[in-house]
């Protein structure tokens, strides 16, 4: 019995400390604090960027600010903000997740025009990560439908990366079969028939492929693949398919929260500063493609710039693409659910 009581007391103490930890919001040294709710793979990018921005802001205004980061699957992060997570800025994997927050009334419409390049200060694309030697000789999307190729990719119903991947596959199949939709669906279905493990998010899929050694090929964010390669240079190779998609992770100010917290100006500055040369170089260094063409060129050895990229506009924008492909009964359900 005593043990039980001790356990209870311990858990109560834990609960209290975690509550107070959450309760300590909005207490930067000068009372200025912004919360950036982001998706999974941007951890390292924002860790570096936040330091640089803090310094810049201190030089400019003399004020110390605090920046709080939060990371998780893009869709679930959007939901947490809808449910009351007090984010001042959102930096998610795709525009559709920000639109969901807009529809909940927290972001003013027209946010996508607020910052340059569809409010997307950095781009990425979808590539393959294979084990060193590439024993299954995977070179392009059509190699993924071959028998005996085990594919790892996250669930398009919950992962931003997987959404971009489905569209990239669709674009490839469209060119291959000359717009014959039945054949395109068959192709997409065959790729997903080869999927061995479907994690709910991109980081989970990377863990499955890298740590647990599952599958022959991981369909992945270019930035995640490059980072994995940096960590394990002798174990993996990146294969860039002949065509892919220009992924535009979007950023937005959560107007409702920012107005309430009095951080609207700071939030705007925080996101605008992402477009400066200094920030664009941090972006390039963290394996995201800078929007600034000149700086992108400085990193031309990192990225395969010759790959042919389609864009979300080819699918009629994210809202239409989401309804067509990922809503219940959409194209993805049609090919995957049998």
């Amino acid at each position, binding site marked *: 019995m005593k043990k039980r009581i001790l356990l209870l007391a311990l858990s109560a103490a834990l609960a209290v400390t975690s509550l107070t930890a959450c309760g300590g919001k909005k207490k930067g040294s000068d009372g200025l604090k912004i919360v950036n709710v982001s998706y999974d793979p941007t951890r390292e990018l924002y860790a570096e960027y936040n330091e640089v921005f803090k310094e810049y802001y201190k030089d400019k205004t003399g004020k110390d600010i605090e920046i709080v980061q939060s990371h998780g699957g893009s869709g679930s992060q959007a939901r947490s903000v809808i449910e009351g997570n007090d984010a001042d800025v959102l930096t998610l994997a795709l525009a559709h*997740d920000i639109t969901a927050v807009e529809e909940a009334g927290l972001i003013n419409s027209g946010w996508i025009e607020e910052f340059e390049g569809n409010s997307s200060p950095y781009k990425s694309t979808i590539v393959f990560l294979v084990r060193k030697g590439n024993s299954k000789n995977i070179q392009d999307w059509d190699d993924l439908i071959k028998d005996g190729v085990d594919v790892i990719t996250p669930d398009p119903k919950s992962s931003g990366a997987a959404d971009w991947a489905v569209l990239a596959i669709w674009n490839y199949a469209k060119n291959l079969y000359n717009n014959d939709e039945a054949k395109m669906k068959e192709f997409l279905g065959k790729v997903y028939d080869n*999927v061995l*493990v*479907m994690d709910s998010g991109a980081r989970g899929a990377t863990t499955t492929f890298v740590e647990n050694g599952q599958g022959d090929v991981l369909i992945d964010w270019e930035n995640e693949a490059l980072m994995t390669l940096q960590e394990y240079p002798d174990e993996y190779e990146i294969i860039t398919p002949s065509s892919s998609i220009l992924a535009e992770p979007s950023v937005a100010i959560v107007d409702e929260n920012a107005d309430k917290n009095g951080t609207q100006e700071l939030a705007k500055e925080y996101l605008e500063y992402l477009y400066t040369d200094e920030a664009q170089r941090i972006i390039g260094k963290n394996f995201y493609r800078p929007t600034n063409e000149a700086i992108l060129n400085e990193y031309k050895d990192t990225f395969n710039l010759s790959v042919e990229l389609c864009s979300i506009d080819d699918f009629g924008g994210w809202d239409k693409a989401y309804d067509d492909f990922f809503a219940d009964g959409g194209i993805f359900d049609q090919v995957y659910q049998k």
Partner: protein
Amino acid sequence: MKMAVFKRQKSIIPGFGLTMGITVAMLSLIILIPLASVLAYSFKLSPSEFVELITRPYVLQAFKTSILCSLIAALINCVFGVILAWILVRYNFPGKRLMDGMIELPFALPTAVAGITLTKMYSNTGFIGRALEKIGIKAAYSKMGIIIAMVFIGIPFVVRAIQPVLEKLPSTCEDAAYMLGASRFVTFRKVIFPEIRPALLTGFGLALARGIGEYGSVIYISGNSQKNGTQVVSYIIMQKLNSGSVDYEGAAAIALILLIISFVMLFIINILQHIASKRTNS
């Protein structure tokens, strides 16, 4: 207690009003209101939408997987739970206390940590998974993986349900049975088992209920492949919530069905338990 409710007589033990008030408030805040909101959300769907959603093949498949795997896991837990409880109660050996404490670890460990660790161990590159693969068993990323995770999280329920009953059962009963000429098996079947049966049913029910709704430890090891039928119901619910369209109604509808299934199962088990305890007490 019952007397106090019905007769409005002043109970000798003070504080009934206060404790009852706290109980009702806690039950409402923590259990009843959240459950009612699940109901409210799912009723936002029209009946035809509701039926259409929960009869979609992938939803049905997930229910099948969850129920089947948690049933098997609960059965496995019953067998090993009895053995574990038996060892802990009837024998003395070094490290017994430690082993007794370890039983509760699955309660304390965050389920996600358990899930990730189990996956690493049981995948074909892991320490246990590699050995299993040699004899042709694929543990992680299959239904077997789901069962392993559910056995892990369910075992304490069975052990902790049976232990006190075994402790109360004097070993003289077994001695008597032995002296009356019963074989060991007959002793177990006729003397011990009827005593622990009600507790075993409780443990089974708790382990089953826990397994059916389990999320954290299962999603990593299951692989979540629709094709292989390794998506569990809790995964489908999270998928609905995490998708770009944030489908609360759909998630609530599936959760409601899960709730009803768990409720019915626990209800049946309670009836069985009632019958079983009547038999042993009479």
